[in-house]
């Protein structure tokens, strides 16, 4: 992330480069314009400028390719701003290409048509005519001089070799020649005459000329000189009239009239220039087109380069913003962008910086609050963990949110590791949780605002009484609804409380009731003995009946007091391995066909393991239950009591189950809920302590006793007793 642009980093080097480039191009155009005034200088500079422009083209091309490749890579990588840059460059290109193309088209057309208009057939024809005129005029002069030179040669035939120099001198002056030279065989110069004051060696005709010379047919030719003048060279010869004499050749060089010479040469130069110009028309147009194309290419490339730089410069704040936004999205609120512009984009960048600063401060504040909340939560967790009460928090979908250590301990399940799990799922692994949840689920589902109940669950080690209180915290703002459940294991407390209460009852009974009973009984017996001797007849009967009633009721009261004493007696179990099946058989044997109207039968599980218990107390339990069943069906013929045992190993742990069912009228519903409370009975002669003692004995053995009326069959009451066992089932080997 570009956090800042220290130093020269933010300097617009690209724009400076463009400026320099255009300055160079402008300079080159000015130089070209000045050079165009001078053809030689133009030709000298043109190639340099061409190379210069080509070099600029190459440099620009390289820069553009570099930028385009860089842009393509950024586009492929999805760098922020690359797409916008591409679009802007495309727009710049389009804007540049359209006008330049129009200019190029019309310039091209103008060049073709304009250059063609420079050439006129009439001018060319006039020049050709002028050249022909000059040529004719000069030819006439050449032919004239050829004739004269031929005649001169003929005259020289008769002149002796010694007089030839004088004769040549005379003749030269007569015909106005620059030079007359008489050459003999082997190019031997016989004589020469020249108008130059400086004597110099005459130039003999070259072999090519000599080959063309024929007798009476002089060779004549117009020749240019390096000083810009024209001369006429005539070479004449005659066939020798004297046998043995050598052939002589006369070469005459005649000047052309300076004006004639200048005019002719001027015409010839103009004609040559025009022909050359016409000939170069095609290459010239190509050159112009090439230059124009070069300028067009430079313009386009410069525009493209400028577009790239400007687009990059324009897009940079946007790409910085996009990058900054990404950083913010990733949680980095410390991002700050450099504000480089004073326009709307600069304002946008400034706003972004303000936003990130505000976000950063808000995040810091939230972080502080979070830490505070964490500390509070840790404190609360600590308090919860150290609470002796189990605490559970369930959300609206009954998913466990919080559980403390005490809850895990009481429900014998790792609830803290099972957070976010639904309670019903937790129940699959933890039987107590399943029982607990089943017992309170109706209140949870109804989302009762506040409730409490006593929940009894059956564990491996016995029953547990859980005093449960719960509050439903409905959805408020962002916090969702929550069940806060607090429960305590009241088993030991209740047991101790009950023991203490019944102990007090027993003590009071012993103190307040039992103690006077013996004197009452003794007094009644004494009255019977003393007065029985005195009274007779009806009085004696009344006395016997009254004292008998007193003694009988006192005995009954003693029995009642003893029953209370037994119930309130602190458990002094003498535990030993007890075969419950055998114990049931023994007890039931006592009741078999006792009155001929009822029947007691058993169905015993042979796999029932021995239990650690007090055989006497368990025997009393059986007596109480069977007696209760028989008393419930007293006076009913065909009364049946059925005792069933079974070994079970369910999620609650291995235990034995004993059911005592009867075919009696069942228990009245109003007694059903408090059937195990002392002094609760619907029988006219019951003490109301039999089932309470039975429950006490079961609880002393860590078991659970339940009671309900049979829903099917002959009806009657069903007592179900579950007592945990440590050993597995007894395996009886089948006889081979």
């Amino acid at each position: 992330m570009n956090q800042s642009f220290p130093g020269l980093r933010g300097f617009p080097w690209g724009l400076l480069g463009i400026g320099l480039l255009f300055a160079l191009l402008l300079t080159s155009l000015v130089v070209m314009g000045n050079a165009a005034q001078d053809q030689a200088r133009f030709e000298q500079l043109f190639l340099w400028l061409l190379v210069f422009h080509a070099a600029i083209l190459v440099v620009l091309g390289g820069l553009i390719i570099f930028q385009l490749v860089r842009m393509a890579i950024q586009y492929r990588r999805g760098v922020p701003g690359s797409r916008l840059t591409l679009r802007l460059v495309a727009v710049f290109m389009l804007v540049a290409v359209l006008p330049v193309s129009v200019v190029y088209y019309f310039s091209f057309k103008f060049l073709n048509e304009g250059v063609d208009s420079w050439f006129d057939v009439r001018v060319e024809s006039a020049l050709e005519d002028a050249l022909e005129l000059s040529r004719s005029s000069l030819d006439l002069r050449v032919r004239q001089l050829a004739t004269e030179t031929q005649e001169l040669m003929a005259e020289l035939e008769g002149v002796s070799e010694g007089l030839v120099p004088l004769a040549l001198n005379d003749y030269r002056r007569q015909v106005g020649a620059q030079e007359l030279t008489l050459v003999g065989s082997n190019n031997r110069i016989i004589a020469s005459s020249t108008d130059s004051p400086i004597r110099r060696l005459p130039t003999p005709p070259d072999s090519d000329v000599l080959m063309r010379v024929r007798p009476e047919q002089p060779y004549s030719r117009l020749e240019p000189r390096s000083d810009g003048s024209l001369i006429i060279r005539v070479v004449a010869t005659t066939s020798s009239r004297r046998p043995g004499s050598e052939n002589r050749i006369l070469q005459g060089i005649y000047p052309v009239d300076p004006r004639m010479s200048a005019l002719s040469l001027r015409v010839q130069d103009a004609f040559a220039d025009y022909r050359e110009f016409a000939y170069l028309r095609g290459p010239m147009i190509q050159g112009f087109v090439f230059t124009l194309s070069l300028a067009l290419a430079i313009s386009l490339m410069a525009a493209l380069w400028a577009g790239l730089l400007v687009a990059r410069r324009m897009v940079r704040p946007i790409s910085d913003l996009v990058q900054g936004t990404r950083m913010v999205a990733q949680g980095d609120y410390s991002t700050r962008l450099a504000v480089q512009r004073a326009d709307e984009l600069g304002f946008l960048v400034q706003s972004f910086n303000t936003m990130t600063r505000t976000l950063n401060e808000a995040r810091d504040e939230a972080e502080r609050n979070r830490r505070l909340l964490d500390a509070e939560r840790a404190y609360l967790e600590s308090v919860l963990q150290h609470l002796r009460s189990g605490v559970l928090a369930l959300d609206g979908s009954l998913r466990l949110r919080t559980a403390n250590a005490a809850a895990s301990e009481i429900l014998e399940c790792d609830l803290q590791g099972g957070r976010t799990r639904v309670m019903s799922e937790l129940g699959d692994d933890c039987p107590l949780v399943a029982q607990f949840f089943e017992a309170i689920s109706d209140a949870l589902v109804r989302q009762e605002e506040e409730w409490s109940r006593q929940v009894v669950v059956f564990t491996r080690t016995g029953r547990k009484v859980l005093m449960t209180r719960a509050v439903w915290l409905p959805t408020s703002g962002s916090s969702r609804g929550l069940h806060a459940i607090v429960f305590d294991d009241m088993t030991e407390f209740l047991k101790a409380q009950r023991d203490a209460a019944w102990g007090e009852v027993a003590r009071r009974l012993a103190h307040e009731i039992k103690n006077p009973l013996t004197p009452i009984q003794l007094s009644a017996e004494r009255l019977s003995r003393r007065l029985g001797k005195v009274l007779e007849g009806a009085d004696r009967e009344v006395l016997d009946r009254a004292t008998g009633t007193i003694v009988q009721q006192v005995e009954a009261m003693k029995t009642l007091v003893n029953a209370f004493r037994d119930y309130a007696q602190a458990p002094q179990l003498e535990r030993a391995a007890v075969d419950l099946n055998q114990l049931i058989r023994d007890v039931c044997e006592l009741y078999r066909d006792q009155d001929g109207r009822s029947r007691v039968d058993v169905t015993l599980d042979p796999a029932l393991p021995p239990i650690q218990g007090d055989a006497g107390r368990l025997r009393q339990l059986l007596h109480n239950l069977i007696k209760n069943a028989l008393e419930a069906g007293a006076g009913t013929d065909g009364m049946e009591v059925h005792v069933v045992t079974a070994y079970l190993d369910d999620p609650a742990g291995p235990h034995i189950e004993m059911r005592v069912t009867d075919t009696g009228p069942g228990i009245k519903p109003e007694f059903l809920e408090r059937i195990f409370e002392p002094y609760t009975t619907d029988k006219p002669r019951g003490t109301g302590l039999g089932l309470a003692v039975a429950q006490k004995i079961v609880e002393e053995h860590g078991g659970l006793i339940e009671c309900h009326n049979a829903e099917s069959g002959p009806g009657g009451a069903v007592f179900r007793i579950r007592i945990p066992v440590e050993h597995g089932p007894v395996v009886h080997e089948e006889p081979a």
Partner: protein
Amino acid sequence: MSACVLSRGWPLALLCLLLAWTGPASAVEVRGANHLWLDEHTLLVRLDIDMRLPAVLEDALANGVTLEFEADARLEHSRRVGRDTLAAETRRVQLQYFALNRHYLVTTVADERMDLKPTLGDALELVARRLGRLRLTDVPPSVRTSPGELELAARLVLVYSALPLPLQLDAGLRGDLTTRQEWLRWPLGED
């Protein structure tokens, strides 16, 4: 052979390099050479020159364009890396059409000697003759004692920069107007 003339025109050569143009073969070239020591300081070189102009140059000549040819000869001492030029000579000859009498004008640039030839063949022959005689002077005297390491180098080129500018550009773009010959070298045997 490549299409650009380097002498006095390396900007154009750069342009040609940029355009990466390779032109057609030229028939204006040195085919062979022999030499003659005139004295211990002077070496006369005779070049066997093939002067067959491409059609485009003949056309340009007929349309008034002056052609200028340059013959270069060097006496070089070859080393393990590179060469030392001991003596060098350059000769330039111009060829143009003289419309006044329909002849071809051959001009030696150095002494402005002019000659007219009625046909192009004669003119080219004269040009070859003029260019083919070069005199290398001021040769160090110690050179002749170790002739085995001496080389005679020669080449013939059309002077590109002497062409009219549009033709130079056209030649640069098309490459068929120019002739250029790489240096030809012969070991200089002992006389």
